């Protein structure tokens, strides 16, 4: 390239350029992260901008406590919330073991008539593992703080 440069310096120039490119790449990707890459949408997104009913989408949130009802015929109704907004969901099928109130879930299906008709319900799981006695003990001692991380959209 530049015949004037010594080989060592030339190599340094190249490494410098590569570093600059990598830094720019990291910058772009990080700023994209702030743009909120979605594996799923939050109830607030859905309420703010209802998608077309033909589109199959994913919505993630916490199962609102006390909202689960089973009217029979394998149908389940519940509401999911991101604490700001809440949308009702109806589903027919087998629920994963981890599905319970207060737990994070991701539902897939279509949003029409202000109800989310799910054809698939996925349960999220947080990073805590402990025997049942321990969790009971912690709950009893009042130190239990349900980790909302698993449900953060």
């Amino acid at each position: 390239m530049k015949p004037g440069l010594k080989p060592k310096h030339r190599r340094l120039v190249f490494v410098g350029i590569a570093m600059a490119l990598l830094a720019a790449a990291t910058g772009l990707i990080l700023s994209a992260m702030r743009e909120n890459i979605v594996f799923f949408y939050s109830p607030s997104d859905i309420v703010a901008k209802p998608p077309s009913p033909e589109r199959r989408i994913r919505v993630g949130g916490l199962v609102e406590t006390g909202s689960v009802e089973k009217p029979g015929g394998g149908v389940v109704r519940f509401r999911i919330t991101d604490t700001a907004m809440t949308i009702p969901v109806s589903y027919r099928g087998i629920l994963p073991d981890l599905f319970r109130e207060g737990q994070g879930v991701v539902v897939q299906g279509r949003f029409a008539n202000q109800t989310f008709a799910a054809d698939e319900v996925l349960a999220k799981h947080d990073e805590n593992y402990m025997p049942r006695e321990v969790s009971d003990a912690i709950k009893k001692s009042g130190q239990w703080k349900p980790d909302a991380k698993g449900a953060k959209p």
Partner: protein
Amino acid sequence: MSLFTGHDLICIRGERRVFAAVRFSLPAGGALLLVGANGTGKTSLLRLMAGLGRPADGAIRWNDVDIAEDPESHNARLHFVGHGDAVKPALTARENVAFWAALRGGGDLPSPAEAGFAKAGPDAGLAAFALGPLASVPGRYLSAGQRRRVNLARLAAAPAPLWLLDEPVSALDSDSVARLRNAIARHRAGGGMVALSSHGGLEIPDAVTLDLTDFAAAAA
């Protein structure tokens, strides 16, 4: 004056030692003729000299600097002519030569060998190997010997002090061999060096001969 040397060279190919303890020394204006039976490592040695491979041991130096230290400067000072002719079927003979000349910066490298040719450039290269009438013929239509001449035309199109030629006369007719002999003589007169392998057919006045058959034993 420049000096191109190698010492204690060991070459390993396909997990086998091809030669060992090879040394050479090539002064400005000098010629080195590599001979030896098939498979004794002529091609391998020329590739080491070009920096296309690294010797398993030993070092190759230009003016006492290892060529591996600054490969680009070494590239700038050499021409390599191998078994492949690097002639693109879709480009004309002239386009082929012009591309390789442009790649080397169009001959504006200061070089002791430059004096050997009146002027450089693709047309000078074509002329040196009597390719003028074929200049606009696509590579696809060239015969084996014509392709080889297009490959050799690079030598005259963009001067460089060190020529590494692997069996350059194969496929050449006698007129072309004479032209090559001429080109080498002019190159050397201008201070250029040449290392070439050959199974005969090209006499180079006062060339140093290196018979690689002698070094095969050392390798085993």
